[in-house]
């Protein structure tokens, strides 16, 4: 199976996760499905410790994606968004390439209209079709190199692109101004909804990179087409018609100076013979209106075109090819990065890696379910997919380290006495609770972040933090500030899950949260725009 990630894979994966959200599949059902996929992939293989070795999360999820694709029908597979995406991008690239080609042909065709009275101006050709392009290339390269340092919470993936380097701050300022004006307008529900929508956009900012690189590649395709058009039109003119190139200047420029300049420009291809005019040819192709073209030597006038064509190749076409290669590399790198960083992927990986605890009573004579055997060789993929639902499994498979310590449970100090972490862990979904005992820590908003900072210094910074919260307490600004501070203490992509409970009952404080209050929390948290911050009611209402 393929282990690499392409943009189309990311698009398909986003579509599948979106589908789960739209169908409101319950978390436990998702956990069961993904865990079963994982077990099917490992095929019951175990190492010496009796545990099945698991590949890295991104590889695991890549295989998950293959299986999900197989599960959809043949017809639906043709209309998967990734496939459509690839086709649209291909069409766009072709259109840009064709458009560039046509533009180059027409532009040079018009420029090289030679009547025989005066030679075509080499300087104008060079400035228009070579120098200007090269200048654009230099500017783009400069902008690509000068990347903005990334800021936590406000980090914009698009910030690495040249366009956003300038537009980003302006856009942010405009949004802030708009926000200030809108603040207080409308009902609380409308404001909450608006902030949540804006936050949701920010949560998905990583995914905007999927569009930026293809757009960049399209632009390069357009540039390549243009250069090819320029070359084709120039060569066609040279081969099929009579053209003459000369240079002009009102200044008393010494031909030696021009010759030296030409030599410098032609340095990259100086090893090629007859691709740059000699000093004598340069001197001989200087055109003065009062003397007319008749006095100039034809051989000198024809010595310029190889130079111009080579200049188009080296200063126009080659940089575009380099940028194209850079774009393709960037697109792949982005897909690889997203495969490691997208919250959806991390959630799937966690679900796949978390063993499902099954304590249901066995029916008479029934044996515990056996691990599923790998699909027999030669069985078709479609046939394998039809075997779903997969047999349930309880085989101990260790969780692959997602890059840090076990999850940390933060409990408000005032609730800590009534909330044993073990009781809470039992209620948590397996992919959040993990196998190891939860590491818990009491916190207060009054105490600020310093105690947590010290705690993190003593222990390893966790990759998953669960924050217990009573849903009936409205989310305050200080909660928001605390969450921002907590993000500052953690890895930028560490998961923070706010686990909601309801009003204390007579026997326990771990009661279901009111759905309306949970929705308010969901929206408030979404408004923060942190893609790795989520809300989860501990007990479904």
């Amino acid at each position, binding site marked *: 199976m393929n282990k690499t990630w392409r943009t189309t894979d990311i698009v398909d994966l986003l579509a599948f996760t979106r589908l789960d959200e739209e169908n409101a599949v319950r978390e436990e059902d998702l956990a069961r499905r993904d865990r079963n996929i994982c077990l099917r992939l490992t095929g019951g293989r175990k190492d010496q410790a009796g545990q099945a070795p698991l590949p890295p999360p991104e590889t695991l999820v890549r295989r998950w994606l293959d299986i999900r694709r197989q599960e959809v029908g043949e017809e639906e597979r043709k209309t998967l968004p990734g496939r459509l995406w690839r086709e649209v991008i291909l069409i766009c690239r072709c259109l840009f390439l064709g458009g560039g080609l046509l533009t180059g042909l027409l532009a040079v065709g018009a420029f090289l209209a030679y009547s025989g009275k005066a030679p075509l101006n080499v300087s104008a050709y060079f400035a228009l079709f070579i120098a200007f392009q090269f200048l654009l290339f230099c500017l783009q390269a400069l902008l690509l190199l000068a990347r903005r340092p990334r800021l936590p919470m406000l980090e914009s993936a698009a910030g690495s692109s040249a366009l956003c380097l300038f537009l980003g701050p302006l856009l942010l300022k405009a949004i802030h101004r708009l926000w200030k004006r809108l603040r207080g307008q409308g009902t609380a529900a409308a404001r909450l909804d608006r902030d949540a929508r804006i936050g949701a956009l920010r949560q998905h900012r990583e995914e905007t990179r999927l569009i930026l690189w293809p757009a960049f590649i399209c632009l390069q395709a357009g540039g390549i087409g243009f250069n090819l058009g320029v070359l084709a039109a120039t060569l066609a003119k040279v081969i099929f018609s009579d053209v003459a190139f000369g240079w002009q200047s009102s200044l008393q420029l010494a031909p030696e100076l021009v010759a030296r300049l030409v030599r410098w420009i032609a340095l990259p291809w100086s090893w090629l013979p007859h691709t740059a005019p000699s000093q004598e040819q340069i001197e001989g192709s200087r055109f003065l209106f009062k003397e007319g073209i008749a006095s100039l030597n034809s051989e000198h006038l024809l010595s310029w075109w190889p130079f111009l064509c080579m200049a188009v190749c080296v200063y126009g076409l080659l940089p575009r090819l380099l940028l194209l290669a850079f774009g393709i590399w960037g697109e792949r790198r982005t897909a690889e990065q997203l495969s490691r960083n997208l919250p959806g992927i991390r959630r799937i990986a966690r679900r796949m890696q978390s063993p499902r605890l099954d304590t249901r009573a066995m029916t008479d004579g029934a044996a515990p379910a056996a691990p599923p055997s790998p699909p027999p060789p030669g069985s078709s993929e479609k046939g394998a997919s039809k075997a779903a639902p997969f047999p349930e499994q309880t085989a101990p498979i260790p969780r692959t380290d997602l890059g840090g310590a076990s999850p940390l449970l933060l409990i408000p100090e005032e609730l800590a006495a009534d909330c044993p972490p073990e009781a809470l862990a039992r209620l948590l979904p397996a992919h959040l609770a993990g196998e190891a005992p939860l590491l818990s820590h009491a916190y207060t908003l009054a105490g600020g972040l310093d105690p947590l900072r010290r705690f993190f210094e003593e222990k390893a910074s966790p990759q998953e933090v669960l924050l217990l919260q009573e849903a009936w307490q409205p989310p305050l*600004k200080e909660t928001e500030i605390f969450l921002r501070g907590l993000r500052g203490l953690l890895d930028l992509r560490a998961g923070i899950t706010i686990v909601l409970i309801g009003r204390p009952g007579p026997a326990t404080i771990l009661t279901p949260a009111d759905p309306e209050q949970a929705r308010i929390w969901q929206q408030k948290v979404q408004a923060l725009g942190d893609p790795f911050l989520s809300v989860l009611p501990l007990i479904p209402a």
Partner: protein
Amino acid sequence: MNPRDIPSFAVIGHPNEGKSSVLSTLAEDDSVRVSPIPGETVTAQSFPVRIDGEELIRFIDTPGFQNPHQTLQWLQAWQGPVEEMLAAFLKAHRDNPDFHDDCALLAPVAAGAGVLFVVDGSRPLRQVDLAEMEILRLSGVPRMAVINSKEEESTWLPQWQGALRRTFNAVRLFNSCRATYRQRIELLESLRSIDQEIEPVLRRVIDTFEEDWELRNILAAAELTGLLRDVLSYRRSVECAREEEAQKQEALLREYQGYVSEREEQARQSIRRLFKHNIFNLEMPPQSILSEDLFSGRTWEFLGLSRRQLIVAGAMGGAALGVGIDAATIGSSFGLFSAVGGLIGAGATAFRGRQALSGLRLLGMKLARDRLQVGPVSNIQLLYILLDRGLLFYSHVINWAHGRRDYERLRETARPEGQGFTRFWDTERRRVCEAFFRAIRKEGEGEIEDAATTLQGVLREQFREITAGGPPTDHSAP
């Protein structure tokens, strides 16, 4: 009075505790935005209480605390004079957008307003609440706590009361969604405990509130009496050939019913406006008698006088025959309709069910010389039913707190009203009604005026009883 010297009370608390709701009820202003979503109020808003254009006291609605812990820490760390503490806090945080709400709520306190600290007593007490209480204690301003239980839960009340009593001059229970007129007045009176110096001003305000309430009752009684007068004295005469009598009778009855509905609605709107309800429009649940057609069987079954009372009323009205027939048809009809007039000539069978509500019976329709004459109303039960509907509406309007916004919930949970009020009236009150009814039928202007004035007195008495609370009391008991 200098605006700065006007006693002010800032309504302060945690977000979503019902501050705006308390204020809306207290100020009888249903335009205050109230929402179950926290953060509805984002700026402080003043609600002045003016008497004859003079502002006497002012309530200020504020946003909820957003950074209680940090605010408390800052105040605790303050080294300067206590009286400058809040001003310094505001100065230090006014440009910090995170502290926008905290500054907005503490600004009136810094300007010397007393504090009404609103908490939701139906939820547990938490550290964040203690932090807010401590902030107010440190501020040193006069303060009172109002426990506004948003739900029926009372488990946490003792916990709240214990904590609040340690920090506040007074603690009051006040349900902003259920508070009656009397409870509002009591809350206002208890503001004296915040600041004894405002006693004279507060007394004046409360007296004016009570006078205003009495005036509203007078106007409501006049409105209801006017409705009765118009509806009962309705009269019409149209040309009618003998062969189209039945058709014309039906058309006239429909016209009359339309008129009564419109007039009743008009009276309701007037009463609603008197009690400053702009949003609340008493869209009653389907099972409510108030939402029933006035002429429906159900309305006549539940409202108005009982059968026995009606027989007595009929006897007093001199329709002895009707009473006799009515008594003979018990069980098979709305025996309530012991028609005062128009009974003579009708057979005992005519007293069945729906026929009792017919135009012929109700409006005493008769054909004379090719003219069909209708009205005035011949059945006194209509007077009692209209009175009951008016009194029920009044009861709903005055008991619907301005801060309450769950109109949909009312539709879902409201129960039928059951019986009205007039059934429990004593003979004396009923005699007033009968005198009014007789005067209307006689059409003697002077007599109607006198009877109407007496009836208004009875209605105001009933209004006071409704305002005092509780279900209709049985005055008819010996």
